[in-house]
């Protein structure tokens, strides 16, 4: 026994004592530089093809389209969402069962999502099945059958989903935030659309939607995984050459700017256990140079929920307060950016007796960002941001999604090394200046759902968007008063 013990120690001791024990096999800097390049090709009809060869045995391939609820009108709001439901219900070549059977037999996942400015149809499959996947995707997008009977059936599904989403209070809160912040503009519309439209959208509406928006120049065929770019381009040429790139009557839908309105909406329901509150100011567009400092600023505030184990040692000051004062169940700082505007805000879930305090400290955190953020705060935020950017790309699907969204937003893929350089360039002064530009003394938009009686009046929340030293007020008032008094006295 002693012999085996010694043998075991002899073998494992060097490993245990090795200086590299516990270290990653590749350093951060290496991972930035070693990331594979994203290839981008544009076909004759304007369709862009992008891919990243990561060497995985699987791949994700999909079509990212520059269309969403922002492109819809009041009459057809929800068409994109409805169409997403109809997409996998059969094409002109294959009925639904045949399509499903094809996908299942490959062991693939066929998925889609619709957001305010983007729509995506994508498939996760083995790398060797790429040709089949592209063929199926091209059918789904270009020749969806839009069967009348199926449309009627899907109406019920959409209505049922509308009901279900009401219990997801975070989504409800953020939808209401958009509705009030961008009131009167297409960005206020929810992706789901109103129930009236779910009942009245016709096949023609969906066909019109496809014809107006599914144009080659607004689409990107993206793949990530064990894919070869040349092969992908070849497949694109053979399946997507027929994609239309001309608009009927040259009516190219242009996105007009969306006006932001400082406002609030309160959906009070005292029967709900927790209140969801979101406060936001107008943020930066996706392509704005201010995006990176704002992302760093959000990392400084960070996020929190009750499952976090750090307790009063959490790095974010607001999180420490949340723990020590039991302010909230969770909060997150978010930045939704669109092509020409954005929403920079904080969303939190709190018990009904702590809403006022949580709002006060959230706005306090914002004011700190604008005035007193320190070198150590910024360093911490930068590290957290870098870690999250790298950590998010942990699979072929997130990478594919990243590529698709970047191409639609920026026209190219922004590599990790570039993000890293731009994050490194952020200084505390930059964070203060840019946060002041977007946050300080601006009218916020507020949305609240649940038992929200304690949420302060809008004027009080508006006043908390700036800090005023009492002495400055008194001195300036006093001097103004003296001048006026003397002036009036002269005339008497």
């Amino acid at each position, binding site marked *: 026994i002693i012999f085996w013990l010694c043998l075991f120690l002899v073998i494992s001791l060097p490993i245990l004592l090795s200086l590299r024990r516990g270290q990653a096999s590749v350093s951060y800097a290496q991972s930035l530089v070693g990331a594979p390049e994203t290839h981008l090709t544009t076909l004759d009809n304007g369709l862009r093809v992008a891919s990243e060869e990561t060497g995985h045995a699987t791949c994700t391939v999909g079509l990212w389209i520059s269309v969403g609820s922002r492109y819809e009108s009041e009459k057809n709001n*929800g068409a994109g969402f409805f169409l997403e439901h109809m997409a996998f219900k059969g094409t002109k070549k294959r009925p639904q069962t045949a399509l499903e059977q094809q996908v299942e037999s490959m062991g693939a996942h066929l998925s889609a999502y619709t957001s305010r400015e983007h729509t995506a149809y994508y498939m996760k499959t083995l790398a060797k099945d790429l040709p089949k996947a592209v063929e199926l995707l091209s059918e789904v997008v270009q020749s969806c059958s839009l069967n009348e009977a199926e449309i009627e059936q899907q109406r019920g599904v959409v209505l049922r989903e509308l009901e279900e989403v*009401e219990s997801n209070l975070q989504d409800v809160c953020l939808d209401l935030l958009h*509705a009030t912040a961008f*009131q009167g503009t297409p960005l206020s519309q929810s992706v789901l659309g109103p129930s009236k439209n779910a009942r009245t959208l016709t096949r023609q509406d969906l066909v019109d939607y496809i014809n107006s928006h599914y144009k080659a120049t607004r689409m990107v065929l993206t793949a990530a995984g064990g894919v070869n770019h040349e092969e992908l381009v070849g497949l694109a040429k053979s399946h997507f050459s027929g994609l239309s790139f001309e608009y009927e009557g040259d009516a190219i839908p242009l996105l007009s700017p*969306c*006006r932001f309105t400082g*406002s609030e909406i*309160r959906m009070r329901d005292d029967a709900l256990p927790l209140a969801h509150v979101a406060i936001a100011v107008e943020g930066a567009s996706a392509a704005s140079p201010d995006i990176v400092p704002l992302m760093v600023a959000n990392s400084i505030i960070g996020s929190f929920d009750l499952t976090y184990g750090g307790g009063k040692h959490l790095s974010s000051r607001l999180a420490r307060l949340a723990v020590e004062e039991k302010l909230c169940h969770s909060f997150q700082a978010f930045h939704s950016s669109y092509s020409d505007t954005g929403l920079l805000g904080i969303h939190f879930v709190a018990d009904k007796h702590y809403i006022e305090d949580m709002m006060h400290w959230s706005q306090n955190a914002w004011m700190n960002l604008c005035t007193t953020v320190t070198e150590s705060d910024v360093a911490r935020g930068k590290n957290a941001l870098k870690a999250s950017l790298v950590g998010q790309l942990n699979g072929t699907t997130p990478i594919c999604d990243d590529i698709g969204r970047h191409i639609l937003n920026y026209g190219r893929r922004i590599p990790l090394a570039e993000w890293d350089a731009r994050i490194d360039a952020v200084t505390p002064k930059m964070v203060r200046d840019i946060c002041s530009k977007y946050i300080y003394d601006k009218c916020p938009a507020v949305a609240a759902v649940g038992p929200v009686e304690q949420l302060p009046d809008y004027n009080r929340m508006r006043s908390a968007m700036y800090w005023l030293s009492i002495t400055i007020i008194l001195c300036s008032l006093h001097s103004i008063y003296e001048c006026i008094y003397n002036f009036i006295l002269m005339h008497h």
Partner: protein
Amino acid sequence: MMSIAARTGALSPYLRATQHTTKSLLSPGTKELVPVAAPGGIRHAHTDIKIPDFSDYRRPEVVDPNKSSQDSSEGRRVFSYLVTGATTVVGIYAAKTVVSQFVSSMSASADVLALSKIEIKLSDIPEGKNMTFKWRGKPLFVRHRTEKEISAEQSVNMGELRDPEHDKDRVINPKWVIVLGVCTHLGCVPIANAGDYGGYYCPCHGSHYDASGRIRKGPAPLNLEVPFYEFPDEDSVVVG
């Protein structure tokens, strides 16, 4: 600031509930779906809530929904703060006026102030004579001095005086001496044209004052008090 509070109850006539009962898609034979009752009752679809159009209340720069509100944001704020600041200043001045009006109402009223001054016709007083008037509850001596008295008083040596004061510091017009007729010892009224110095003599304890009202002999420590007076014209004096 625009605010809309939407309670599920209040908006029920305007919201259509998504209580669309449909056949179950999951499997045949299941009962008709009952709408999901969220805690607190039936919840209407939040996407059906329509934010009202507040165009009537918007400032002109933000009426157009297709124009970003950022450009006009500073201008609108500056305007609001200017109006607030101006109103504050005017308000403070108005408040100060009101407060000082109320506070000054507690000071002496007009009739009391009227009593505080006395106008005396000088031609009524012959030369060398002293006349006594009641002023502010005290006797006021107005003396028409002769040339001899004037020169006598003006040449008095300061060193002799208990309370040194030159005559010209006690009179505006040397012909007229106006002093309070209250002895500075214990407050009796001196008698005019009496005493060893040709001025006043207090009978209570024997204080002698001269024709300028200065103490010369006796227990009084100070000269007779000279009140504020002015000559609005040749023939009259206003004291007080």
